[in-house]
């Protein structure tokens, strides 16, 4: 049978950011897929040699908007380890609050885009309507909706007063009820199930061997989440990774749906543990040596390798983002699919290309 190469992206209705896939198809079946990157590479890692280690916080926040808080959290944790700084307990809990609000709005954004990818526009609009309430929380507590810029080396720069804590808790009651009202649609609606169940299956062994990360890994049955490392305030918070076993698009969407609800619980736990300690510890000295630090972004495991030489500029900032890890598994599951399922499967990895290319 004749083979045809169909370009998918870099501009495509389901892609919020540019990635290109050369899809080789026979009839309507994909037989090969080759990813190409490079549309939004900015060389941000290299700026570490030109911006001092405090200025780098603003740089790493711009690796990706929607993961910005967790990028800076990972970077600051690494710097704190290198500089021997003990972060106050209140700052650790506040970091949990804002990082989980980030995860919540990221998952709601993705669930909406995913619904849109198979034409379920009303579900998309409902999910994004709920997300706006979370964005309002970010804006009111930090001054920004997306890039909240709360982390500094040693702690955080923003605080929550008692009225804000009450307002966040009240808003989350409303958000939780709204998300749960969509649960049966997202999990059981026939339109959703027909487009997602049994589609783009990644087995447990393949997910592990191919280095999948985050919901892509947990949707295939691997119970691994970097929050188990108990960074920030997670050492005091009850947490278990959410796992599905089917390994298909439905499983990945359900992991994210359940994680959105779990994030609400984690925010509440962190808010209940806010004490009267400082917002940030004093930082002395210049970074020297090398550290590796890991956190769980909405899309999965994020690793920072940092190397300092005793100067205010770092020698190296290496960032490994979850979408970068999820591209080889994506390339592996596309062959064998119907061409019409490609947009759904591509979106099921929650591609964040600005993260991937940095």
């Amino acid at each position, binding site marked *: 049978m004749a083979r045809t190469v169909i370009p998918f992206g870099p501009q495509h209705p389901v892609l919020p950011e540019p990635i290109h896939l050369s899809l080789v198809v026979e009839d309507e079946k994909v037989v090969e897929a080759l990813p*190409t990157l490079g549309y939004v590479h900015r060389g941000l890692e290299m700026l570490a040699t030109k911006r001092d280690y405090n200025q780098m916080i603003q740089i790493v926040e711009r690796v990706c908007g929607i993961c910005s808080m967790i990028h800076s959290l990972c970077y600051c944790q690494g710097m704190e380890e290198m500089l021997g700084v003990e972060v106050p307990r209140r700052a650790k809990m506040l970091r949990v609050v804002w990082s989980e609000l980030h995860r919540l709005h990221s998952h709601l954004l993705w669930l909406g885009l995913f619904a849109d990818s198979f034409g379920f526009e009303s579900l998309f609009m409902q999910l994004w309507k709920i997300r706006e309430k979370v964005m309002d929380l970010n804006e009111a507590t930090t001054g920004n909706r997306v890039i909240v810029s709360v982390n500094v080396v040693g702690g955080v720069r923003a605080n929550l007063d008692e009225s804000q804590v009450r307002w966040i808790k009240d808003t989350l009651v409303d958000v939780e009820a709204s998300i749960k009202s969509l649960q049966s649609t997202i999990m059981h609606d026939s339109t959703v199930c027909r487009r997602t169940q049994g589609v783009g299956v990644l087995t447990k062994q393949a997910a592990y061997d191919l280095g999948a990360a985050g919901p892509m890994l947990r949707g295939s049955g691997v119970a691994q989440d970097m929050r*188990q490392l108990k960074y920030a305030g997670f050492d005091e918070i009850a947490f278990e990774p959410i796992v599905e076993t089917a390994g298909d698009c439905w499983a990945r969407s359900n992991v994210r749906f359940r994680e959105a609800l779990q994030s609400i619980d984690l925010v509440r736990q962190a808010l209940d543990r806010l004490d009267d300690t400082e917002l940030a510890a004093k930082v002395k000295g210049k970074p020297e040596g090398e550290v*590796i630090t890991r956190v769980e972004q909405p899309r999965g495991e994020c690793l920072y390798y940092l190397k300092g030489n005793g100067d205010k500029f770092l020698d190296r900032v290496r960032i490994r983002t979850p979408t970068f890890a999820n591209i080889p*598994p994506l390339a*592996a599951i596309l062959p064998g699919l119907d061409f019409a399922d490609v947009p759904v499967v591509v979106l099921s990895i929650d591609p964040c290309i600005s993260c991937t290319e940095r």
Partner: protein
Amino acid sequence: MSIEATPVTPAQLVAEVTKLKAEGYRLVTFSSVEIDAENMEILYHFDKDLKLKNLRLSVKKGGSVPSISGVLFTAFLIENEIRDQFSITFEGLVLDYQGKLLNDCLTTPQTSPFCRMQVASSGAAAKEVR
């Protein structure tokens, strides 16, 4: 302060990675680090049960090291990125983008499979070629 990392030579690398895979380690990523004007290091980060194990490989700038993508397919993307950014080549790379992963068309003349135009040369002489 430095991270724990097992030094490996290019000749030992693939065997060591194969051993780690057999022990159930998952490749997280590599980090390439400039040491001085002539030398670099590549740190290979593996994870098992949330514990990291690192391998440290020394390499000359512009040099060549064995690819581990034959053992761990997921390494192909990392190796292509390091080649683009640091000009280190990987022998036996299963999917070789020939230095074009990031489409850095302003530094060297090149084409891409989905774009009909290419930049013939950089600087003032740059022009679009159809």
